[in-house]
């Protein structure tokens, strides 16, 4: 099965004619992308910094 609709297709003008799977796919992606497009919260950047710093300290100098 292949669900595609050309860019020129008028979505929503005749709801009964629209494939509901396309609507589901679009909404799922919209929901997902709304989070994906957010900036990475500072807590994660800080966490990675800390993990990296902790690792640097724990590695014996000879190994570097």
């Amino acid at each position, binding site marked *: *099965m*292949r*669900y*595609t*609709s*050309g*860019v020129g*297709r*008028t*979505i*929503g*003008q005749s*709801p*009964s004619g*629209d494939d*509901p*799977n*396309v*609507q*589901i*796919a*679009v*909404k*799922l*992606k*919209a*929901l*997902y*992308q*709304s*989070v*994906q*497009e*957010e900036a*990475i*919260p500072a*807590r*994660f*950047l800080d*966490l*990675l910094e800390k*993990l*990296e710093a902790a*690792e*640097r300290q724990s590695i014996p100098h000879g190994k*570097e």
Partner: protein
Amino acid sequence: MPSENQEFKREMLAALPSLRAFAMSLIGRHDRADDLVQDTIMKAWAKQDHFEMGTNMKAWLFTILRNELYSQMRKRGREVQDSDGHLTETLAHHPEQYGSLDLQDFRRALDQLPPDQREAIILVGASGFSYEEAATICGCALGTIKSRVNRARQRLQEILQVKGENDYGPDETSAPITSRAFVS
């Protein structure tokens, strides 16, 4: 060898936006989703020796995240009830997290799916994984993933149709991405 370490961190950072989106799609609440992402980062960091640079970092992190989620759900036994849609009640307190009413309805519908179907349709329909990759991430057979995705679609259709068929209106967000809809 600091470079390999930095490379690991860089790849992890690159995968974080989609990892958060995955967590958020599965759980539905920013605070809990980000706690889960944090747990995942720490687990992944501790296991970085197991990761082969050059292989799929995103799939690796997604696998850790979903395993972590399910192990946490098992530990807090009662929260497994989330799978029956009880999460919807808590979601009602956070409606501002989703732009349009339309997406809020969709979010609630998504939360009514059993967890295995929800993760399957998210992985294939939003995260951009193939059915094969999704099967590996979930640790199940290819056919299982396919049937979960199909059942998820059917169930979402049922839920959303009950809400009102005329809700499928045109909107600016849908038009540009419709052309990249499911290919199965």
